[in-house]
């Protein structure tokens, strides 16, 4: 697979150039939502679903 060599910028620089007003409170909310989704995740069910897809005949 190809490796891209694009330059990474700082998060602050990206927010400035995007005009995004990201706050600590907003990030905390985003983290909370992700945590909630992680806790609700059925990893075994997903693994079984993926295994089933992979075992289907072509």
């Amino acid at each position, binding site marked *: *697979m190809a490796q891209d060599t694009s330059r990474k910028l700082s998060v602050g620089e990206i927010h400035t150039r*995007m005009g995004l007003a*990201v706050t600590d409170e*907003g990030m*905390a909310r*985003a983290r909370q939502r*992700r945590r909630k989704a992680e806790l609700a995740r059925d990893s075994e*069910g997903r693994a079984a679903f*993926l295994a089933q897809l992979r075992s289907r005949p072509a």
Partner: protein
Amino acid sequence: MTESHDEVGRDHGRATEAKLVLDTTAVVAWVRGSIAVGETLAEIDDEGGYVAIPLWCLIEAGHSTAMLDRERLDLLLAHPATALITDDAADWETLVALRTLIGRADCAAAAMIALDLGVDVMTRDASWYRSVAGGAIVLEIED
């Protein structure tokens, strides 16, 4: 960076872990200045993780925005918490099955990467993923 699933997990010399996949609607939301996507990327960067962007989702987002906001797509790729991911050729049959279930190749790629990495797909439209693992693989954008 453009990497296969197996090559991800490193960035700027630090060990990183996939936390989320952005689908086409999430990339378009970023282009349109979604604060929810920006906050999520920032907190994942804070955590030292990364967000996978399937190549096909970037292509579809570029197409659907007519590349009018090319700079914003470049900024997404320049974000320290993003990694552009290509499909693994060995997964082609599974991708066909997912494409059949979902109805879109870009969403199939997003679902494949999410299932493979054990993370969720951030999307504006969860209905596309209803038939994938009971639909419980999404994190909807809430602006």
